[in-house]
C-alpha cells in the first residue's frame, strides 16, 4: 500500500486535477492574515476535506456548512500552527473534529430510507430492499463516525496509521483496531444478503 502524509503536495498536472502545490510562501502569507493566500490553501485541499466531511457526516447537505466552519477555524488557527505535522494533516484534524461535533450535535438523526414498496406487498422486507439498493452506503452508515473516518483516511487517502492517529487524536493501535472492525463490518454488510439466503 502506498503510504503518504497529506502535506503540501507536489503533483504533476493531470495526476489529480484538484491537488495543487501550496508553496511555503503562500502558507506564510496566510499565517499573516492574507485571506487570498488562505483561499489558495483552501482550494488545494477542499476536495479531500470534503471527502472526509462526507464520510464522517454522511449527509451531503451538511458538507458545505461544515467546510465553511473548518475554513474559518483554520484561518484563525493558522498563525498558531507550528508545523508539527503537515498542513494537510492539520486540516484533516480540524475537519474531523468539526464534523464530529456536528454529528454529535445532530443527535439521532436517522434518515428514512427512500425505498418505495407496493402497499399490498405483505412479504417484502423493506430493510432488505434498502440494503439491496444502497448496499455500500448502508454498510458505511453502519459504521461509527470514527470508523468511517479511519476508512477514509487509511483506505481511501492512503495515510499510514501514525498519521491517521494524529488526525483522529487517538493512539495508532486504536486506528488499527477501528480499521479492522470497520473492514469486518463493511465486508459483513456487503456479503450478508448472500449469507441470509444461505441460512433461510
Amino acid at each position: 500500500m502506498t503510504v503518504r502524509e497529506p502535506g503540501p503536495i507536489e503533483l504533476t498536472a493531470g495526476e489529480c486535477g484538484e491537488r495543487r502545490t501550496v508553496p511555503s510562501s503562500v502558507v506564510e502569507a496566510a499565517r499573516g492574515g492574507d485571506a487570498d493566500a488562505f483561499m489558495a490553501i483552501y482550494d488545494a485541499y477542499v476536495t479531500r476535506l470534503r471527502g472526509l466531511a462526507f464520510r464522517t457526516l454522511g449527509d451531503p447537505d451538511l458538507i458545505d456548512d461544515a467546510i465553511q466552519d473548518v475554513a474559518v477555524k483554520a484561518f484563525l488557527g493558522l498563525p498558531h500552527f507550528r508545523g508539527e505535522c503537515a498542513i494537510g494533516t492539520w486540516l484533516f484534524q480540524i475537519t474531523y473534529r468539526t464534523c464530529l461535533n456536528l454529528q454529535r450535535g445532530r443527535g439521532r438523526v436517522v434518515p428514512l430510507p427512500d425505498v418505495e414498496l407496493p402497499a399490498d406487498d405483505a412479504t417484502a422486507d423493506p430493510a432488505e430492499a434498502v440494503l439491496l439498493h444502497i448496499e455500500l452506503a448502508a454498510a458505511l452508515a453502519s459504521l461509527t463516525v470514527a470508523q468511517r473516518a479511519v476508512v477514509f483516511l487509511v483506505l481511501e487517502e492512503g495515510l499510514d496509521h501514525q498519521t491517521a492517529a494524529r488526525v483522529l487524536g487517538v493512539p495508532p493501535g486504536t486506528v488499527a483496531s477501528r480499521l479492522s472492525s470497520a473492514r469486518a463490518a463493511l465486508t459483513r454488510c456487503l456479503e450478508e444478503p448472500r449469507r441470509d439466503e444461505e441460512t433461510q
Partner: protein
Amino acid sequence: MSEEQDKRLREALRGLQPPPPGADARERVRAAVTSTAADAAAERAAAAPAAAEQPASRLWRFMAVFARRRQAAFGLAALAAVALVAGILLVGPPGGGGPEPVSASQVLQRALRALSSGRTLAAEVTIRERTNAFLTPAHYDVDRYGILLSADGSYRLSGRGASTIGWLPGVRSHPPVDVVFDARRGVLSTYSRKWGLTERYGYPLGPPDRWAALVMEFDFSAAGRALEAADATRLRTTAYEDRPAWAITCSQYSGPSRPAITDEGFHFEITIDKATAIPVCFKGFLYDQLTLEVRYSNVRVDAPLPDRAFELKAPVGAPVRRIQDGFRRAPLARIAKLPGYTTLVPARVPRGYRLTQAAAAPHAVTANRMVKGRKVVALQYARGFDSLTVTTRRVSDPRFAAEYDPLELDQSWVEQVAWPATIRAGAFRGVTAQVVVAPMTTTPHLWAVKDGVLLTVAGSATAEELVAVAASLEPAGP
C-alpha cells in the same frame, strides 16, 4: 484482510463521492474568512502593541472551546427543548398546590408532576437556532410548528413555514410539512406540497428499531433524566408572556455513568409557568450569546383535540407513496405461536407500566443500522407518556451484536458510558448485558445476546429497572 480486498473496497468507495459544492460555497467561505480577518484585525488594533498577539489567541481559544463544547451545547439544547414537551412524560401526581417551591429541584419536580398528569397537549412551537456561531452579527434560523400530542404516543406536527433548521429529518428547506404518527395503527404519515403524501405502515414500536419519536428528534425520558441529574441549578422568578414564571438555570450536568461535564461557557435556562407549572421556554447560551431558543406559546393541556387530529390526507391529485415497514401488530398470544420467533415476556416491569402493543417482523435493521436481525418480536409497555420497549431478534453474528450498541450512533461515546451488568435470572440468566443510562439525549437501554438472540430493553426506566426487566424474562405461555 488482503491487499486485494482492500483494493476492492477502495474501488467500491470511490463510487460514493460527495456531491460537488454548492454554487456559492467558495464565495461563502471567502466571505466568512474575510469577515473573520477583519474582526481579528480590529481586535489587534484595539489591543496594546505589547500584547498584539493576545486578542487572536483569546479568539482562537474561544473558537477551540466552542468547538469542543458544541457537543454538550447541542445535547443540552436538544434535551431542554424537549423538556418543554417532555414534562408530560414524567410520572407523578398532578402539580400545583403545596408550599411555594424554594429550590430549582422543587420547581422541576412540580413541573414534571403537573405535566405528567396530562393526556393531551396542544401548542405553537418556535425554534430559533444560531447556526453559525463564528460570524457576527448573529444570524438565527427559525422554524415554527403547531404540535398536538396524545398520551398514546400519537402526535401531529404542522409546519408553519419552510423549515430552515431541519429538525425534521428530510424536510429541511422544503415547503411546510405535516407529520402525523398514529400510534394505534402504527402509521407514520408525512405530507409536503413538494413530495406529496408518504404513509409508512407497520412502523416499528420503539427502540432499537426506528421509532416515531425519532422523527421529532426528541427523546423525552432521556431529557427528563438529564434534568434530574443536572447540577448547579439556580432558581429565580421571572415573567413569560406577561405571566409569572420561574426560571431554572443549569450551567453543567453530570450523571451516574458519565464524568461531570463542566462548561464554563454554556448554560441553559428553562422557564416554567407558575400558574400551571408547565415548562414553556428553553434558552441555551454560549458566553451569554443565545444559541438556541424553543418557545411554547398558547399551551393547552388536556384540551380536547380536533377530530381526526392524527389523520393526514393528501389533496386530490397529490402523489401518494405507501411503504410497509414490516412490524405487524398482533395479540401477544398469536405472536407467541409464530415458529422461529423468540417471544420472551417480562414478569416484572416498573410500576405503572402495562403492555399496550406487540408486533413481529420477519426482518429489521436497528435504527443506527448497526445490527440486522431476523424474527423480531417487539413488546411495548406504556405508563402515561412513558414507554418501554422489549425486543428480541435472531442475529447472524452474535459476537458483533454483543459488542455494538444496537441503539446509539456514536459507539465511541457508548464505550465511555456503558457498563456491564450480569442478568441473574430468567431466560437470559448468566449473560452479561451492557447498560446505557446517561444524561444525554439517549433513551436508557440495555442489550445482551444469548444463543444467537439479541435482547434489548429500552425506554423510560432507571438502570436498575432495566436490569430487573431483563432478569424477569420468560417464554410466553401458550
